[in-house]
């Protein structure tokens, strides 16, 4: 087949209003009556890029799909490849992978909690949480060499082992973290100003969450018991003792509670892993560069929810097709809908409650259409400030 080459338009000047609006809301006064979203601007060509790279290079690229859940993507990918190649990863390797999985969940949820606090103007909580997050970043750096993008996976296992000294150190840090988490659980449910901003806001019913096929803490906060670690366990999760945390609140407070208690469960899992870590190899000694023809579907419970990777191989050292369905995509439309009925001032915290890639929100334009007052294009940051001011003035909520 002849190759078709296409030129894409790249213009240096582009009127602001023609930029794809990421969120488009219909409003009546201060209330949101309709919502739509659009994410075409973020297209980077990663799936196509994987086809031009060998499996190890593809893993390197996939790690950078998102800097917050990088380990999720490499693990999901490597699981698919290992399935096609029928490789049995040594148990110690799987345990080490899981330690990183749960550490990533911890740092990601802490990051989210800080950002959520920031969205409502609760900056002191933001700073506190991010300070505690550094405890987890320190552990990650000690055991992998990097704070982000740990590059810990290889096909057939992991690349770095942990020493007994590191093991003990991690257990010590987790003890401190648990105390902080108990404190955050209290704030999330008791601090009046914070609760006032998150209770009854951004509601999504359990039925709607299921119809929209929502995943992760966002779905679990609407009482949907979906967690890949329980429903379709990978690595050695079937052997671990932990709870599937749900909430029937169906609102943003539910999402806070689910994430905080999930962090406590993550501490439980890490402790079990470290206490019962088997001896042995951490990776298979020899793995072929070429992957036999086949296809596999890999599911992974990333901090934001189910991450699905589909890999088709063609007998060479490069994949034929790689499909990455990150959890945020599964939740976006449901999240957009959950905002209907809320105030314009609630938009930032309601959208943030699904834990989207936080920087994506930086780059977007938000369109507010009021039938009486016309169309207004604003930025996330402006909307955030307006929301904080509005609640301060109209509801007396100040931090």
């Amino acid at each position, binding site marked *: 087949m002849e190759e078709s080459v296409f030129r894409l338009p*790249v213009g240096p000047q582009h009127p602001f209003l023609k930029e794809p609006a990421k969120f488009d809301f219909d409003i009546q006064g201060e209330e949101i009556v309709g919502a739509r979203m659009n994410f075409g601007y973020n297209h980077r060509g990663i799936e196509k890029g994987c086809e031009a790279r060998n499996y190890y290079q593809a893993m390197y*690229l996939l790690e950078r799909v998102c800097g917050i859940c990088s380990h999720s993507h490499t693990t999901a990918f490597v699981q698919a490849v290992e399935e096609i190649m029928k490789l049995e990863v040594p148990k110690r390797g799987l345990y080490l992978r899981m330690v990183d999985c749960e550490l990533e969940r911890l740092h990601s949820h802490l990051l989210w909690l800080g950002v959520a606090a920031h969205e409502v103007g609760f900056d002191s909580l933001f700073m506190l949480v991010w*300070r505690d997050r*550094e405890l987890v970043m320190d552990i990650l750096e000690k055991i992998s060499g990097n704070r982000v993008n740990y590059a810990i996976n290889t096909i057939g296992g992991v690349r770095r082992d942990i020493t007994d000294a590191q093991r003990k150190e991690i257990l010590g840090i987790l003890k401190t973290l648990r105390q902080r988490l108990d404190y955050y659980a209290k704030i999330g449910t008791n601090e009046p100003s914070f609760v006032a901003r998150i209770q009854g806001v951004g509601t999504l019913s359990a039925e709607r969450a299921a119809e929209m096929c929502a995943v992760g803490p966002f779905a679990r906060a609407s009482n949907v018991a979906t967690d890949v670690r329980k429903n379709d366990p990978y690595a050695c999760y079937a052997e671990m003792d932990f709870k599937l945390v749900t909430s029937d609140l169906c609102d943003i407070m539910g999402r806070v509670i689910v994430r905080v208690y999930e962090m406590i469960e993550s501490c439980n899992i890490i402790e079990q892993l470290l206490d019962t870590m088997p001896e042995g190899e951490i990776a298979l000694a020899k793995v072929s560069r070429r992957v036999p023809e086949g296809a596999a579907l890999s599911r992974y419970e990333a901090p934001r929810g189910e991450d699905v990777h589909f890999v088709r191989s063609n007998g060479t050292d490069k994949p034929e097709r790689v499909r990455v369905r990150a959890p945020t995509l599964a939740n976006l439309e449901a999240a957009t809908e959950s905002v209907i009925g809320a105030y314009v001032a609630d938009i930032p915290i309601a959208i943030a409650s699904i834990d989207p*890639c936080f*920087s994506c929100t930086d780059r977007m334009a938000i369109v507010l259409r009021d039938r009486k007052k016309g169309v207004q294009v604003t930025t996330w940051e402006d909307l955030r400030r307006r929301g904080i001011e509005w609640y301060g003035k109209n509801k007396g909520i100040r931090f």
Partner: protein
Amino acid sequence: MLEKLKTWARVKSPWILHFNSGACNGCDIETLASLMPHYDLERFGVLLKATPRHADVLVCTGPVTRQTARRLKRIYDQMPEPKFVVAVGACACSGGAFRGCYNVLEGIDKVVPVSAYIPGCPVRPEAIIDGVAKLLGSLQTKSA
């Protein structure tokens, strides 16, 4: 005389605008972390601003997707002189992991002039502080 005063004001407390041109967020989180109490870039008087019109330094991450290229240029044009651009991360410097992907321009210097390149994937907060300190230092030297 006015020049020296302006430089002094800028060097003492540069106000920065952060822009993500299609990054994975790794560098963005680390940039934010460097402003948090643990690393505390704010002790240099560095403040994060929301609009280009108040910013001295544009801190940019990401390999620059075609769509964000237009916005990046516009934001740069809106900043008042004198202005500086810092490329944070391997992607912003040269495309990083996304080199060869068809929808990226591979580096922000393809769109705007860059004053400082801070490599890393992602950049460590210490490296960001080091880079910003070096930039401030070079400004001070220029004004002397």
